[in-house]
């Protein structure tokens, strides 16, 4: 085995061009945990795609047993390596050499002393450039390959510090158990098979070769056969066959070919003096076949030598009275016609005067035993239903099987194709799938849809996907068709989808897109029958209805796959025309025609379409919130970690928000667009940077940006004096100074029960002259970090910290109802991200305290502000005190965020340069992951104290009214206990006198 290492002196090293080490300069292509005594060989294979002058810039480390990175443990020596080299790094030397038959390039490297569950990191210039496995894990990982190997899929990598399981092929654990060397192993380590190509399509390689030579004894039974060993048809008019007679060095006869030869077909040139048996198989007769056993043949394309038979200039007999067939597997010609030629190198002698093999070249049935065991079309084969079986895993795992079925789809991007049994070969068992994925590990040469193929391979389970790993090219057995199975959601039970794995299916339903979280990352969306809701948004936690809905939700989904492996695709093909900021695919939109094959990857069943699906924008964007207009509008929005750095263009990356000034600008522009479109009088915000109210603070600069967009200093922020609480984020409030005034000071509640203290402010509406108090909140989230005791997940669907959220709700209402200045105003509105769905305990607690869930009242069961795991519900709330309830006119959720793909947000990571622009617009959509809630009030004018007759003033008419009512012993509202002594009597009339607007209590 030649390696291209060169140890150079420092001077030569210094003079070599040193390439910048980018993430692509070393690619980890394989890891092996061997079966020999001591678990050897333990080694990694590395591919070098570009020349490297000094390999010591790079190194290796392994993270053992999920304990986190150990950093770079081994540094390569200062050697130069050239592009295309494969390097082997092994824990020792002897075992490696015994197993592979060659020595490792770098031996005794303890960093690769791995056991199959240890992650490997490649470093260059101190940064991780490629990774296999997760460096941290708590329990034995799914990618463990003890006594087995992993090998990188061609045309992937390097993956940097992120492990991408879909870029790896797994032998499976114990695949090498009992093996003694790689050459004879059942599932050998595919060393040096990794290729990384360009994005250009592979050029079509024409392979026309001599495939048979017949030189009969006695008579003129002579023929030469040509064979198209490539994958596409060849135009023969570029080719010539030349005959060199009796040692001549110039061609005596030349035949220029014409016509077209399909792949896998033969072209027979016979001598016109041959017997009928030969002439029957001839495509043409020609004098170029006037050879006698010592004459040399050449095949040339446009003058260039592509194959030869014999040695030009040598007139000795070398192929007399023989019928020779070119060995199977020879697909390239002998392009040196001047060197010595011995037919036994590449040809097999069928004997003398054997003419029966003309007109075909291997793979045809002829009574000759097939070299491979694949058999002929129509021979017995294993039914796909037997391979799939009734369960998830194949009952024929790791066995070789031959399948004869119809190709339903070929996917070069998936390096394989799907087949399905013809109707006559399907079993009656609905639990066994009739489809199967055939993995060829090649993106070219795949059979065409609608072809009946006969294929042999090993039955394998790739992460629970049953598949056939093709071992040699399939036989084309003619055209055939299968009908797609009609499928509908939800599935009947948990094993329904498994019974469809690998099959061609069609949906007659209109399906709803219910999740687009991974649309940008993997090009996939989730489809369901209708919208899917969070169970505890509709039903009480733990109730029978909630559990039933949770179970139903798991059966009501399938993924729509884009048919491309890997992540962050350059082209996100959904919806039609490709995803962009102006061509979105929202949850709630629909797919109205879907036909494809059912695949299984990453624990999800997916449909890979065979026809482009039809998308309908059933849940289109709206330009502004739509609700009835009253005299006051309040909005509530979680702004998804709005951090402005240091407020002067620096301070990036921020703790939780934008990583660069560019990201901040993108985020700010979207947020300003959203706030301007909402046009609210009071706006509650959550997740704004908790950096106070100075000129460089996030809230101050947000308000400034809004006012700049409006062209007037309209909005101001409620100033709580300084940072609120100790969390990195806080709540905040903005208000329109032209439509509301502040009444009294802002109040915050710093009780330790709150993760983020609530902020309350009383307002006077200038239009309505009514007053209300708005309290904005951000309860503890459902994430489980640090949860203990009752805050741990109680497995009732409410997540972690439910107990804390209930305590926060109770403390909030007690505060609103008892704090001296807050409790005076009976018109109270609770808004914010409460991190609890509609029927969960915290919302019920608010209801028990007298606050009504307005979204439940005005929007109902279809309300949502957030989509998680493909299920919709609302964590963002508006609740009104009983006094305020009658003044609520309308409530809506403006669906600008929860429905949109997250790839359209302000972030720039994981996007190509084109996508950074195409996936962004400075509009309101996906400014956050939560939708805003908008509340429209028809606020009553604030009652005037002492106003008996309801005309909003106090005069003698009111005094007379009170005196009369007292004297008549009428029941009088305690609002007229003006001296607050618990009783309404003439003393209150005395007080009322002092409240008169005009002297002498004159009537205006």
């Amino acid at each position, binding site marked *: 085995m030649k390696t291209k290492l060169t140890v150079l002196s420092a001077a030569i090293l210094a003079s070599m061009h040193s390439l910048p080490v980018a993430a692509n300069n070393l690619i980890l292509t394989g890891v092996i945990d061997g079966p020999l005594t001591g678990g050897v060989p333990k080694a990694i294979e590395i591919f070098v795609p570009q020349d490297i002058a000094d390999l010591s810039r790079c190194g290796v480390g392994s993270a053992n047993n999920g304990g986190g990175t150990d950093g770079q443990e081994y540094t390569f020596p200062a050697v130069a390596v050239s592009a295309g080299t494969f390097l082997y790094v092994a824990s020792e030397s002897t075992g490696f050499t015994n197993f592979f038959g060659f020595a490792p390039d770098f031996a005794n490297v303890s960093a690769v002393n791995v056991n199959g569950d240890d992650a490997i990191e490649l470093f260059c210039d101190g940064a991780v450039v490629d990774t296999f496995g997760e460096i941290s894990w708590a329990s034995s990982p799914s990618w463990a390959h003890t006594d087995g190997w992993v090998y990188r899929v061609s045309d992937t990598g390097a993956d940097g510090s992120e492990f991408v399981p879909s870029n790896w092929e797994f032998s499976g654990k114990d695949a090498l158990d009992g093996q003694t060397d790689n050459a004879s192993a059942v599932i050998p380590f595919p060393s040096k098979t990794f290729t990384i190509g360009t994005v250009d399509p592979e050029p079509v390689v024409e392979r026309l070769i001599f495939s048979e030579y017949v030189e009969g004894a006695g008579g003129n039974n002579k023929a030469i056969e040509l064979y198209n060993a490539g994958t596409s048809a060849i135009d023969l008019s570029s080719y010539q066959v030349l005959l060199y007679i009796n040692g001549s060095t110039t061609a005596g006869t030349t035949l220029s070919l014409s016509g077209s030869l399909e792949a896998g077909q033969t072209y027979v040139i016979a001598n016109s003096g041959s017997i009928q048996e030969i002439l029957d198989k001839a495509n043409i007769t020609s004098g170029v076949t006037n050879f006698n056993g010592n004459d040399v043949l050449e095949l040339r394309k446009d003058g260039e030598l592509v194959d030869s038979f014999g040695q030009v200039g040598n007139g000795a007999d070398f192929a007399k009275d023989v019928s020779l067939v070119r060995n199977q597997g020879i697909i390239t010609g002998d392009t040196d016609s001047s060197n010595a030629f011995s037919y036994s190198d590449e040809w097999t002698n069928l004997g003398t005067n054997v003419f029966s093999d003309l007109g075909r070249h291997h793979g045809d049935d002829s009574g000759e035993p097939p070299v491979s065991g694949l058999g002929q079309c129509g021979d017995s084969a294993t039914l796909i239903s037997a391979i799939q079986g009734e369960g998830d895993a194949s009952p024929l795992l790791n066995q070789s099987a031959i399948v004869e079925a119809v190709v339903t789809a070929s996917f070069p991007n998936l390096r394989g194709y799907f087949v399905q049994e013809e109707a006559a070969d399907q079993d009656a068992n609905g639990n066994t799938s009739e489809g199967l994925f055939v993995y060829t590990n090649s993106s070219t040469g795949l059979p065409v849809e609608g072809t009946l193929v006969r294929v042999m391979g090993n039955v394998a389970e790739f992460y629970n996907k049953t598949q056939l790993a093709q071992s040699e090219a399939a036989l084309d057995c003619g055209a055939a068709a299968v009908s797609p199975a009609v499928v509908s959601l939800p599935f009947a039970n948990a094993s329904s989808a498994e019974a469809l794995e690998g099959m061609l299916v069609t949906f007659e339903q209109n399906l709803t897109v219910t999740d687009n979280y991974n649309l940008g990352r993997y090009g996939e969306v989730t489809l369901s029958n209708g919208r899917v809701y969070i169970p505890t948004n509709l039903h009480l936690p733990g109730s029978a209805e909630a559990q039933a809905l949770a179970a139903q939700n798991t059966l009501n989904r399938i993924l729509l796959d884009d048919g491309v492996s890997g992540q962050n695709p350059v082209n996100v093909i959904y919806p039609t025309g490709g995803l962009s900021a102006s061509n979105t695919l929202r949850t709630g939109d629909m797919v109205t025609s879907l036909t494809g094959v059912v695949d299984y990857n990453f624990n999800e069943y997916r449909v890979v379409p065979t026809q482009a699906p039809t998308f309908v924008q059933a849940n289109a964007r709206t330009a502004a919130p739509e609700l009835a207009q009253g005299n006051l509008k309040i909005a509530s929005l979680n702004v998804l970690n709005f951090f402005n750095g240091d407020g002067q263009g620096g301070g990036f990356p921020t703790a939780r928000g934008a990583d660069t000034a560019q990201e901040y600008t993108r985020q700010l522009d979207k947020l300003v667009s959203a706030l301007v479109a909402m046009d609210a009088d009071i706006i509650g915000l959550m997740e704004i940077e908790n950096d106070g109210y100075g000129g460089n603070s996030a809230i101050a600069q947000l308000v400034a940006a809004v006012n700049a967009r409006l062209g007037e200093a309209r909005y101001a922020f409620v100033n709580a004096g300084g940072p609120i609480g100790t969390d990195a984020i806080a709540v905040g409030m903005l208000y329109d100074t032209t439509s509301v005034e502040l009444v009294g000071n802002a109040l915050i509640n710093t009780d330790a029960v709150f993760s983020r203290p609530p902020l309350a402010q009383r307002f006077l509406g200038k239009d309505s002259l009514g007053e209300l108090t708005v309290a904005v909140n951000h309860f503890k989230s459902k994430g489980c970090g640090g949860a203990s005791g009752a805050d741990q997940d109680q497995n009732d669907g409410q997540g972690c910290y439910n107990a804390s959220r209930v305590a926060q709700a109770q403390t909030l209402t007690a505060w609103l109802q008892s704090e001296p200045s807050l409790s005076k105003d009976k018109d109270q509105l609770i808004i914010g991200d409460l991190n609890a769905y509609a029927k969960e305990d915290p919302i019920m607690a608010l209801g028990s305290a007298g606050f009504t869930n307005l979204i439940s009242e005005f929007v109902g069961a279809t309300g949502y502000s957030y989509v998680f795991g493909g299920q919709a519900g609302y964590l963002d709330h508006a609740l009104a005190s009983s006094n305020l309830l009658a003044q609520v006119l309308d409530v809506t959720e403006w669906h600008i965020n929860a429905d949109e793909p997250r790839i359209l947000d302000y972030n720039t990571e994981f996007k190509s340069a084109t996508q950074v622009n195409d996936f962004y617009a400075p509009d309101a959509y996906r400014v956050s992951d939560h939708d805003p809630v908008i509340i429209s009030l028809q606020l009553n004018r604030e009652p005037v104290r002492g106003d008996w007759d309801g005309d909003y003033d106090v005069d*003698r008419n009111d*005094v*007379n009214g*009170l*005196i*009369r009512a*007292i*004297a*008549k*012993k009428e029941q009088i509202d305690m609002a007229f206990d003006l*001296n607050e002594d618990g009783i309404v*009597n*003439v*003393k209150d*009339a*005395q*007080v009322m*006198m002092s409240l008169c607007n005009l002297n*002498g*209590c004159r009537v205006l």
Partner: protein
Amino acid sequence: MKKFIALCALVLGFNANAALINLSLDNIDVNVGDEVTLTIEATGLVDIASFQFDLLFDASMFSYANDGMGNAFLDSSDLFGALSFGAFDNGTGLGFGFVDFMPLTGDVLVASIKFTALAAGSFDFGLANALFSNSSFEDVAVDLAQSVSVRANANAVPEPAAWALMLLALAGLTVARRKQVK
């Protein structure tokens, strides 16, 4: 009435300066259909900014001038110019209420009301539930006079034959007292 007041003064000699609400009738024996005038006076007031009290009587036995909605028309009062003053049907008689910018001091005619007897019998007018407040919102103690009574006599309505006999009998008499029926 002065005799009555003097009696009160004797009884409450040490409180001679306390506020007092007094009741008096101009006639304590009338016929049904006749009018009596009830006078309510308040004496000894010091800095009274507001007051309320009830005049208790059986309102089905007496009628009084009113506006049809329970507001009594008082015949006379010193308090008509106040910011708010009036007497209102409250189901137990009349409720009185008063409040003014100018507190009351000294003696005041609260009200004189003309009642018409509607039925025969002996009927009381009494005072109760008094609250007097000064300009500092302090309760001021007030004595309430005892109730007063009026007797209403039924008008005899004789048989026509008896009337004729009476005329005959009287025809010879020189003394005739005519009763006026109001």
